[in-house]
């Protein structure tokens, strides 16, 4: 039994500042500070507290190494970085229009199965302990003294059983990634020009056979459980709206021309749909530990110069903005932009358990822009990617070429856009004398967990925290719940 001791005494006017550091059950190192007044968050600060410097480390290296090295930006979504990096290299090497159909499909199969792994891992092993009471043993304890865990005992037991089963299911998803990826985490099989391994009839049959358990778990356990947990925590559908802006670069190319994606590119800014224009992406560093010369730059002009002494700075995360606005990324963004049909499971659950008649994602309206709404978006997206994987398995041709020759150019420039499970991901490469002269990565969580920008606008998570109820400052459970809904 433990509490989060608020170490700052209440200020005049009854405001209390509390810190959640580390914010656990995420990838990486994050510190969240909120100011609470009258039981609600009135100010928030999101701080990335770790820096490695991939952009500096890549300079001078063989460009082909980028897709291996940048995978190590993240061990949960290395396939996303492999995808963004090879798309940038495809562009710079002059082969992006030459990727074979089979190469595209092999990449989709490798990347797609890791989407399923990532989303299952997120709900059960990262988020669930905010809603489910684990066994009375490490690491499920210690927990907050008053953790606000509301599931009835019988449902809680089912949830715990699913948590344990999900460990196996997500490992099985990694077996699927490994089939054409070589190993996972950090695949060998996605390279510039395509994918290294040509599928065989036998391997495709094995992939499909192994897939059955995953499909069963997603449809019979994961998706229904998200909706069920939502009914018990209904209040979490009405907080965490934030700016209500989002951006998606599009993911899983469905044709060889990169003109059609499973989840389409686009942005939604100030209540309006806008087509994606990558020229509108800029990074700001006023509140980040970088030299001011790094601010207000398109990633193709991006710079990474550290300044730890900078006044006012509080994060290693830069602040990317689209059309000058903070935009969130992730399943909510992709589903909102694409507005696909909801799963049959979802349609039924919403009708039976929520009394909501919904057919398409946007029918959820304001409910989507919330803590729980982001979990629903992720579950619904999992259903779409799951079905797409089955289609790609049928479409890919055994024995057909998966790669095109891609010699290292003396010079070149390329941008690779994709969507990591947690949001918009961009890699930029500039090659001179056959070596990397500049490399910039703008990962998903940079968008979501960004600090304020040069215009003093809060980042998405900071804005979304405003108004979130924190009735008990010693047990500020909703802070973690809000942040984890983004899967940082």
């Amino acid at each position: 039994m433990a509490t989060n001791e608020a170490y700052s005494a209440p200020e005049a006017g009854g405001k209390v500042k509390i810190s959640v550091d580390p914010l656990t059950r995420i990838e990486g190192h994050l510190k969240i500070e909120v100011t609470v007044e009258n039981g609600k968050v009135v100010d928030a600060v999101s701080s990335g507290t770790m820096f490695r410097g991939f952009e500096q480390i890549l300079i001078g290296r063989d460009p082909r190494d980028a897709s291996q090295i940048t995978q190590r930006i993240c061990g949960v979504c290395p396939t996303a970085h492999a995808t963004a990096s090879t798309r940038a290299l495809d562009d710079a090497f002059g082969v992006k229009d030459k990727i074979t159909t089979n190469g595209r499909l092999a990449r989709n199969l490798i990347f797609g199965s890791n989407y399923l792994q990532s989303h299952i891992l997120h709900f059960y092993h990262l988020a669930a302990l905010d809603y489910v009471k684990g066994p009375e043993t490490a690491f499920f304890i210690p927990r907050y003294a008053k953790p606000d865990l509301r599931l009835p005992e019988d449902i809680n037991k089912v949830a715990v059983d699913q948590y344990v089963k999900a460990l196996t299911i997500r490992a099985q998803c990694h077996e699927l990634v490994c089939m054409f990826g070589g190993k996972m985490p950090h695949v060998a099989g996605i390279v510039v020009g395509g994918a290294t391994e040509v599928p065989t009839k036998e391997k495709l049959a094995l992939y499909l056979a192994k897939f059955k358990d995953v499909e069963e778990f997603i449809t019979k356990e994961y998706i229904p459980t998200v909706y069920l947990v939502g009914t018990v925590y209904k209040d979490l559908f009405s907080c965490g709206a934030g700016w209500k802006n989002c951006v998606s670069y599009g993911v899983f190319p469905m044709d060889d021309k990169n003109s059609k994606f499973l989840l389409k590119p686009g942005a939604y800014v100030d209540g309006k749909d806008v087509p994606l224009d990558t020229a509108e992406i800029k990074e700001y560093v006023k509140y980040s530990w970088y030299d001011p010369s790094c601010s207000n730059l398109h990633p193709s002009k991006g710079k990474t110069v550290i300044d730890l002494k900078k006044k006012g700075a509080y994060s290693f995360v830069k602040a990317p903005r689209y059309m000058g606005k903070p935009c969130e990324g992730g399943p909510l963004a992709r589903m909102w932009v694409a507005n696909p049909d909801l799963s049959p499971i979802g349609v039924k659950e919403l009708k039976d358990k929520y009394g909501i008649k919904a057919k398409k994602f946007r029918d959820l309206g304001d409910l989507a822009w919330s803590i729980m709404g982001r979990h629903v978006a992720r579950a619904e997206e999992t259903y779409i990617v799951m079905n797409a994987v089955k289609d790609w398995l049928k479409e890919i041709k055994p024995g057909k070429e998966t790669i095109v020759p891609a010699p290292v150019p003396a010079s070149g420039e390329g941008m690779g856009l994709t969507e990591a499970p947690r949001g918009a991901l961009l890699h930029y490469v500039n090659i001179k004398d056959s070596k990397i002269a500049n490399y910039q990565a703008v990962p998903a969580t940079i968008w979501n967990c960004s600090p304020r920008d040069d215009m003093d606008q809060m980042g998405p998570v900071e804005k979304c925290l405003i108004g979130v109820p924190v009735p008990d400052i010693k047990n500020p459970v909703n802070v973690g719940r809000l942040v984890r809904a983004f899967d940082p």
Partner: protein
Amino acid sequence: MSLKRRDFVKLCSGTVAGFGISQMFHPGLVKALEAATEPGRPPVVWMQGNGCTGCSVSILNSVNPSIADVVLKVISLESQETLSAAEGAVAVDHMLDIAERFKGKFYYISEGALPTAEDGRFCTIGVDSKGKEYTVLEMAKILGANAAACVAVGACATGGGIPGSKGNVTGCVPLHKYLESQGIKTPVINITGCPPHPDWMIGTLVHVLTKGIPELDAQNRPKMFFGKNIHDNCPFLPYFEKNIRQKNFNDKKTEACRADMGCKGPLTGADCFSRKWNNGTNWCVENAICIGCAEIDWPDAFSPLYSPVA
């Protein structure tokens, strides 16, 4: 909930092929086996510095034993940032509490590199209930000094990895180098790999808990997992000897040696050739090439990754 020793060993039979090699006992380890939060479940604190969480994700892929069995029946995983229910000061206080209460009796598993530049400012890991902020260096010092033994997992923690490679401004170093610099003599086992295979991590833990520190090579890696050279044991070795080579990834001739494509098998010691990856599904050489990620000086000594070994 805990297991009898022979059931425990049986449970791990798939993992520890190669068990029964000579071992060294460290006095603190016997104590660790005796002292536990529950009988038979030694306390473990896992902390990540400048890493990517890949090692944590990889260990979740353990099949035999399942990771569920490991954390519920074998060890008491007191703190693990990716999985722990605790957050904030609750989490930090708990790490400090375990280090103090089980001084000399717990295991510290270290993931990620340690940034020594700028007094450790490139990674802070949390704030305790007294309001003190800890850099990863400060916490690594406390955990390292108080643990019975340390297990460094992954390229970053064993050799510096990518964060410690050429061009970095963070001064990232592996755990053993940092502890040496602080005069801390707690033994450190290095489990290399980017990431390590789950069997390498769990197999080493099992060996440590039941038989003590396994036989280690010059980089303090368990010989049972890293003692054999990939090239010498590669299924494509006969093709190498006949000079049948795959020229590039387009070359349809896949029943061939991958040396010309940059395969680093000749420089790498790891049992991927027999264990394979992800429950025996595939491995890097079959699928593409070996990039040498299990060697302690990866990646710089192996770069460019796709250029042939001289």
